[in-house]
């Protein structure tokens, strides 16, 4: 041990623990002898100190009664009845990074579970299938309007020629669209003139074409069927409120709505009805 500029009684204790008297430096001896009487006293104190340290280090000590701990833990729980706070403190431990905290992990697990539930096929399909059913029902007009087992509705279109001679202008475009769209030509003989030679169709403009048309082969496309049916709906609706005058003949036109399977029959009927209408137009 190097000599120090300042000695104090604590150094005597450390000197005694580490050195015998003859091992001391001259400065240290001088310092020791300032506080102790002789070398014998130094050695005597040194042996006592070593014995004390040895005795205390080997002493295992006594344990307090275990009931003390249990009593204290009960006391702690009763005096600190804040279960939620303790639980929250254990979740929000501040000594660890944010991503390692139990609360963060629990929230992340909940979030992943909710996300999985929302995106799961069963959850998605149950909602979508419900919507799809609704959409299908709304689009499936034939199902609602035309039940399969129900007889096709029939509407009779009665053209009352005894009344006014005016045919609403809305009828002509519909009929022309039906003709043009279906590319149909009239095959039956169509009377070109009425009995009185006049035909008041109520339209302005050129007179309709004559009936002396060559035989026409009925041509129908699949897309024209639907438009034909729609047009027939319109015609039936309009014609039900339409009155024709000076018609050479009064014919009742039966418009039979058919389902998809009897679309061909509908086209034939349509052909006949168009021929009748043409007769009306040409007669006027």
């Amino acid at each position, binding site marked *: 041990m190097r000599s120090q500029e300042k000695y*104090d*009684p*604590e150094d*005597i*204790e450390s000197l005694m623990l580490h050195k015998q008297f003859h091992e001391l430096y001259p400065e240290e001896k001088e310092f020791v002898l300032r*506080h102790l009487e002789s070398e014998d*006293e130094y050695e*005597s*104190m040194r*042996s*006592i*100190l070593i*014995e*004390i*340290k040895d*005795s*205390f280090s*080997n*002493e295992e*000590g*006594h*344990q*307090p*009664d275990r009931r*003390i*701990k249990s*009593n*204290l*833990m009960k*006391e*702690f*729980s009763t*005096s*600190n009845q*804040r279960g939620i*706070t*303790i639980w929250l*403190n*254990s979740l929000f*431990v501040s*000594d*660890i990074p944010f991503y*390692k*905290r*139990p609360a963060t*992990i629990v929230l992340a*697990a909940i979030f992943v579970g909710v996300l999985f539930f929302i995106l799961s096929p069963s959850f998605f399909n149950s909602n979508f299938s419900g919507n799809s059913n609704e959409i299908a029902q709304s689009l499936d007009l034939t199902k609602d309007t035309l039940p399969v087992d129900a007889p096709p509705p029939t509407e009779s279109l009665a053209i009352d020629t005894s009344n006014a001679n005016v045919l609403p202008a809305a009828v002509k475009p519909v009929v022309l669209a039906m003709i043009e769209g279906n590319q149909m030509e009239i095959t039956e003989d169509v009377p070109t003139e009425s009995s009185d030679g006049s035909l008041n169709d109520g339209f302005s403009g050129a007179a309709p074409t004559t009936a002396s048309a060559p035989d026409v082969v009925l041509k129908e496309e699949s897309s024209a069927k639907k438009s034909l049916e729609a047009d027939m709906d319109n015609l039936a609706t309009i014609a039900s409120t339409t009155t024709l005058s000076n018609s050479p003949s009064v014919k009742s036109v039966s418009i039979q709505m058919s389902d998809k399977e009897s679309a061909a029959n509908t086209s034939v009927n349509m052909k006949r009805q168009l021929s009748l209408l043409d007769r009306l137009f040409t007669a006027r």
Partner: protein
Amino acid sequence: MIFQPSTPFKKLSDEQLMMLVSEKNAQAFEVIYDRYAKLLYNYFLRMLRKDKEKSEDFVQDLFTKIIRKPELFDPQRSFKTWIYSVAHNMCKNEYAKHDVRKEAHRDILYRSSSSDETNTGKEMDKSLFQEELNKALSDLDANKRTTFELRFHQELSIQEISVIMECSEGTVKSRIFYTLKHLNEKLKHFKNIIQVVFFILINQL
């Protein structure tokens, strides 16, 4: 297993544990108890003349104070010095109530640190030495005895002892020095007796 536990409580410092105790954390309190209960119990045993019941009461009272008023501990200071300060004050109050010194002298005659009757010769020497040591310490005043106990039994530093006993470091050093000198005077003859007995036994063999 996705979840990983947070920092174990046993790795936290005393000051960190006390902050958790003030937040009503029972696990932190349990760790504090496990660290200091035995040390304080043996300290009380030595300061209260081996009175087991009273020492256990003191341990329970001290930790009950921690439970009820954890805010009394200042996190800025060392918990070790704080808890020993509390223990020291409890012993001081006890000395003020009773004249312990007279009882201590009587108790030392009838109690020893080791009561095992099957001790070997060396262990008997140690047992006898401790009895003599305790007897010599009982002659000292409370401050010197406490200083000696904290220094050599609890192995605290001079600075820590000065904080606990609210005195200067020089005072602590002086007390230790004079305690050793006193013990040397009291136990010198005991050492001599042991050496003589040992010498005799060796010669007979």
